[in-house]
């Protein structure tokens, strides 16, 4: 059953070939045997999953089933789940049983989906390798020595290993697309505001956006239908109609104008990756697309800009963790300041502390103009580059990441080299645009992702463009050895 697409699973449930309880049991057994090694789940909610599956089966018998009813899903441990630990990959929240559900969780529950558990992630979504988790690193199913990418590393690894048919993720600077690329799965970061952030533990609020990780664009489209939509609980949620994202998948892409930014193919890109991306572009030409050379002249400054904006917002957001209302509290505080300082010092990991300090510094008196204001001005220039590009082209393509999955430990002592893993994904978050990563080949037996970037609210177009490629190629169907 675990080899089937979500559409096939949905059809199987509808025809009565298997029940949701059987399907859920099958995935739970795969998690039990295969995840000991991968470490892609922080919490497996087996009992609740089987109860939810039986409810889904009853919904179906009552004639109330939708296309996702009874389909299992893994939730990134950044989404609050009522009654279930929501750790965000941190010691700070190791004891946190959320008193409410995130809107994404509510929406998928309402669609009748069955949550298998909570996936591993870099602490507070800060990282590109999943090594910053309090619960230990996740292994890449394609190579035990390699990282799965991050921060949604557990979600990407679980989908790649087929121990979950679908997973949720969040993407602040590439945290859906980069692990999707490194694990060989399909990941979509929608337009900022498309999916509610309510109950999604905040990292950098002007950049954070949730999205699906799946084995194909079609599967991603099905779950995006349930995730997207206006939410009065999120002040930046966009009140705009949600189309049926599966409706345009089969449209021809004849005449599609694909922009290729010179900056995405310049120095720093691995030769093997460049070859894989060129082969994918040839495939698109065969389908009738036109390649157009474009430039995003300020995109080279997206990493420095991001490492002011994101830490500044994180230093503010993470000030809520004070050892008083929820989360970790140090033992025997001497006074209130000692309570704050030691609870935070002991509860947060090194990378989180670094980013809080960078943000605190950038926002402190005397430095605000040089750092934060400057970064916001550059954000405007980076965003304007995309606006101009989309006057000439329909989508933009390039690599998702500059290299394939690196080895565990290879970059963990060098934050700046880790940050450069996201050089092609970060600009998209600064502009608030939608972006995808789809599997396009391999280098040294490790997966390579093709990034597809669209204009605001063109998720349907992106999914169509990705689906057409997946009809013509088999890269998305590859399964890591041992997980067939």
């Amino acid at each position, binding site marked *: 059953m675990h080899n089937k697409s979500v559409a096939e699973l949905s059809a199987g449930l509808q025809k009565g070939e298997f029940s949701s309880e059987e399907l859920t049991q099958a995935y739970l057994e795969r998690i039990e045997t295969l995840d000991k090694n991968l470490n892609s789940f922080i919490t497996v909610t087996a009992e609740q999953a089987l109860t939810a599956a039986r409810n889904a089966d009853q919904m179906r018998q009552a004639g109330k089933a939708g296309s996702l009813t009874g389909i299992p899903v893994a939730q990134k441990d950044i989404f609050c789940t009522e009654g279930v630990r929501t750790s965000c990959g941190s010691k700070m929240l190791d004891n946190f049983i959320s008193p409410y559900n995130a809107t994404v969780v509510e929406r998928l529950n309402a669609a009748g989906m069955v949550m298998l558990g909570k996936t591993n992630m870099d602490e507070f979504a800060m990282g590109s390798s999943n090594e910053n988790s309090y619960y230990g690193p996740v292994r890449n199913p394609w190579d035990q020595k390699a990282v799965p990418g991050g921060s949604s590393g557990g979600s990407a690894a679980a989908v790649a290993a087929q121990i979950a048919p679908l997973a949720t993720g969040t993407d602040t600077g590439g945290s859906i697309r980069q692990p999707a690329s490194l694990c060989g799965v399909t990941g979509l970061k929608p337009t900022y505001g498309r999916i509610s952030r309510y109950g999604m533990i905040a990292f950098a609020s002007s950049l954070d956006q949730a999205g699906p990780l799946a084995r194909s664009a079609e599967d991603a489209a099905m779950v995006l239908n349930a995730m997207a939509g206006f939410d009065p609980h999120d002040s930046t949620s966009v009140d705009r109609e949600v189309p049926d994202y599966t409706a345009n998948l089969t449209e021809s892409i004849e005449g599609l104008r694909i922009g290729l930014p010179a900056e995405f193919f310049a120095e720093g890109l691995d030769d093997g990756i460049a070859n894989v991306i060129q082969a994918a572009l040839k495939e698109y030409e065969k389908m009738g697309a036109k390649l157009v050379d474009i430039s995003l002249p300020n995109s080279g400054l997206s990493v*420095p800009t991001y490492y002011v904006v994101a830490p500044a917002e994180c230093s503010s957001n993470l000030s809520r963790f004070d050892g008083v209302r929820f989360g970790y509290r140090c033992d025997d505080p001497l006074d*209130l300041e000692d309570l704050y300082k*030691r609870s935070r010092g002991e509860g947060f990991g090194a990378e989180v502390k670094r980013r809080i*300090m960078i943000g605190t510094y950038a926002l402190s008196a005397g430095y605000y103009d040089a*750092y934060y204001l400057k970064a916001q001005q550059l954000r405007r220039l980076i965003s304007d580059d995309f606006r101009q590009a989309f006057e000439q082209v329909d989508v933009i393509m390039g690599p998702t990441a500059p290299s394939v999955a690196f080895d565990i430990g290879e970059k963990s002592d060098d934050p700046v080299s880790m940050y450069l893993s996201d050089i092609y994904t970060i600009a998209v978050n600064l502009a608030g645009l939608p972006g995808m990563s789809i599997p396009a080949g391999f280098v040294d037996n490790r997966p390579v992702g093709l990034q597809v970037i669209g204009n605001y609210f063109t998720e349907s177009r992106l999914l169509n463009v990705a689906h057409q490629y997946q009809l013509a190629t088999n890269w998305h169907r590859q399964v890591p050895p041992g997980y067939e």
Partner: protein
Amino acid sequence: MSLDADEVDKIAHLARLAIDDKDVPEYATNLSNILELVEQMSAVDTTGVEPMAHPLELAQRLREDEVSESNQREHFQECAPKVERGLYLVPKVIE
């Protein structure tokens, strides 16, 4: 931009983070490297560029000033480290 140990201590204090003395040199090195990366921003002249605070630049949505939530204090305090009679407990702040 290079940070020394005193500056790291000062920033850690502003951020209310206890940092072990033995870890300060490593933080100083890493934070300095990150700031060096950030310094690349100065390569572009941004005089007169309107700062962009938010990707969608929509006006903040307003709603009627009506009660929309019920009181769930006990439920929300279940996950608190220390509460008594509905109050969060902290070390004594007034002598």
